[in-house]
């Protein structure tokens, strides 16, 4: 029973090709907004869409990039920069982290594991 529960926790978001390279998009799961980003190498990341600094649901509309080798997204409102892998805010001390979710791509389909969300 447990095994099948974990299996259904991988939720389909979209096709990788629906995401523009180096750009984000927002997916909605049971009312929760999750920002998905496809990077230059087709790696996909999932973080919370809510900007911890302003409370607005905008992270999917931020610019991605790297800071000293870490993959990042910048809030489009006040430009705080977050680590896409850990969710940690790299630019400002004391700003809460973004929640993150495991993502996988199978047969060109992006799936997000909602178990921890």
């Amino acid at each position, binding site marked *: 029973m447990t095994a099948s529960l974990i299996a259904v926790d991988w939720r389909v978001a979209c096709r990788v090709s629906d995401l523009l390279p180096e750009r984000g998009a927002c997916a909605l799961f049971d009312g929760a907004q999750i920002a998905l980003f496809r990077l230059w190498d087709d790696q996909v990341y999932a973080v919370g869409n809510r900007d911890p600094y302003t409370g607005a649901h905008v992270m999917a509309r931020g610019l991605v990039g790297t800071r000293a080798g870490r993959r990042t997204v910048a809030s489009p409102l006040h430009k705080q*920069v977050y680590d896409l892998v850990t969710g940690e805010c790299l630019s400002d001390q004391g700003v809460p982290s973004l929640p993150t979710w495991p993502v996988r791509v199978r047969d060109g389909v992006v799936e997000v594991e909602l178990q921890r969300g």
Partner: protein
Amino acid sequence: MTRHLVVVGHGMVGQRMVEALTDRDTKAEWRVTVLGEETHSAYDRVALSRYLTDPAAALGLVSEGWYDGGRRTCHLGDPAVAIDRSARTVRTAAGRELTYDALVLATGSKAFVPPVPGADLGGCHVYRTLDDLDRIRAEATSARAAVVVGGGLLGLEAAGGLRDLGVPVHVVEFAPHLMPQQVDAGGGEALRRLVEGLGVRVHAGVGTASLQSDADGRVVSATLTDGTVLDTQLVVFAAGIRARDELARSVGLGVGTRGGVLVDRSCRTEDPAIWAVGECAAVEGSVYGLVAPGYAMAEVVADRLLGGSGELAEPDMSTKLKLLGVEVASFGATQGPLDVVFSDPVAGIYKKLVISDDARTLLGGVLVGDASVYAGLRPLIGRALPATPETLLFGEVSVADDAQVCSCNAVTKKDVVDAITEQGATDVPAIKACTRAGTSCGSCIPMLKSLLDECGVHVSKALCEHFAYSRAELFELVRTSDIRTFSGLIAAHGTGHGCDLCKPAVASILASLGNGYILDGEQAALQDTNDHALANMQRNGTYSVVPRIPGGEITPEKLIVIGEVARDFNLYTKITGGQRIDLFGARLDQLPQIWKRLIDAGFESGQAYGKALRTVKSCVGETWCRYGVQDSVGLAIDLELRYRGLRAPHKIKMAVSGCARECAEARSKDIGVIATENGWNLYVAGNGGFRPRHADLFASDLDTETLLTYVDRILMFYLRTGERLQRTAAWLESLDGGLDYLRSVVCDDVLGIGADLDASMAAHVANYSDEWADTLADPERLARFVPFINAPGVTDTSIEIVYERGQPRPARPGELPLEVLPR
């Protein structure tokens, strides 16, 4: 349907061709087949000499599995041998028959072997492929001495490699000095001294007359045209290259007078399905033997194959390299109207700057023995000298403590140093604040920068960790090359994949250079949220919508439409400081519907979201006002329509006042115009903002035509030389020579770029197109305006609104959202 590209040739440029197309071909329009003559995958031929001493050197350019046999296929050791242009097929040596939709010739070149008697003897080699180098290495062990025929870049590379293998080397150069293509006589002489100091014998100004052999047909000596006989068992020809154009010749395609497949600036041959890139191509007759122009050609063809209109810009033939441990660099012109030369035969250093005859503009230079200033100088080509030539050549200044640095304000070097070391000034603005140095004419600003450097304060203008260049430097790199993509730019001049700082800056540069619709292709990924949504994001993630109202003049009918749209979409409405109307609170998915209504009523984007022209504010002028002396509204509308959509380092605001009473507050704008009895007074570089600054009077009593020319040039010069997010006020203050210098560039054309600036602005005006109309016309572009990728029709309920003074506004934290008012 997928089209088929066949690339003939698998060298550096051929490989780049496939990579460039793969990068850009996001819709998978093409599949590619590559035919390589050598049995090796593409390798870095520029680093060939490394392979001579280290056969294990990793020079490969293609990672395992990159050619997947599907969309990308590569056949090694199977060169193309015939083309059938009418059937569009290529036949290979192994008998493959490939049909193509497009054919790219990237066959490169072969080594040129001068017609020397004995050139075909055993022990004679060319210096071109890995196989050539394997043979040279094998024979070097038993050679007592080697002769390299050719004292250019390749010849010195070969000499360096042979020397490292322990073989005594002679270099024979027919021209009077070494590296005649890159450096002048003085540089060549310095180079000779350095190279001879390393044990390489140089014979310049002589040819190779003949080669003699032993009984086995192996070379034993070389006789030069001056009668010298050199004992040698190994001869390497590195005397130049000849384009491999035989395939093109065999099917009747034109070739250049000195060889090479004749192509236009799009790299297309006279056959529209056949292209040529790299060393086998003769672009408008010229063959380029460096890899950078070849890469640029590959990018152009990739762009063209996907429907673009890229053209090869004048290639940058600048080079910097280390030959035999000696640094050699040349950039721009190597000879010119004025030369500033430094030569130190003892230290083996030769430096030359080529400058314009008014001694203000850097045209090029040659550096031998010490090329450390190359990186700083090369981006300055065609630009005003930021310091004296001596300072530029040595990157240092030496001034007595009590010497006046700023004569306008009588500030000494000691005053400035104290400001830095004791008052903690870390940049030029801080020095200005402490000492007033540099606040008047601005001519001492380079000196202030050097003093900061001297005191150990490093002022970096680097854009971010991905680019070591400032925005202005990057602008020049893009403008003077044919790079028109972020990936191309970062590959050529940066590292990594970019970030939220460099991407929008580069996007703005590309837009300034007229790269078309800002959300097409790769450009889309670079745009800041505002430019991506073509609207201004507000604190709650909704957007504001600002239609353009040129000069603030609007008909009642259009006002009614704005009112209706605001009412129907429940938008907060406010008159802006720029005499237009801002509609707040639009959700991402509402933007296209809102703009459909506005565009149907004759509105267009107001670019309130872009680092671009915002508005041209005006007073009502002589049309109605009893004090007005000119038609200020008419001019404001003309200016706004002329410069609308112009992307810049930062936003640009303008205003036109109809008389000296200045009701339009023009002196607080980047460009301000105030009417006089005789015409217009032009003011520049004002702003409100954090640090208000009144605009400076630039010119008086201009007629409208001259006014437009001046504004054209000022804006274009700002676009080219401004730094990231630098308003015109800060820009003018940072210009060495300040206002006078700007006048000399704009009015007297001291840089000789006036016509170029005019043409750039004319191109902007001619190519303007409304971004919102373009967006609405294309379903693919509209697809971006959905709130949720997996639930396109669902409304974002996280946006909470309350009402105040009869209009909606974002709810503050903890505020109870109210029901949306019924319409």
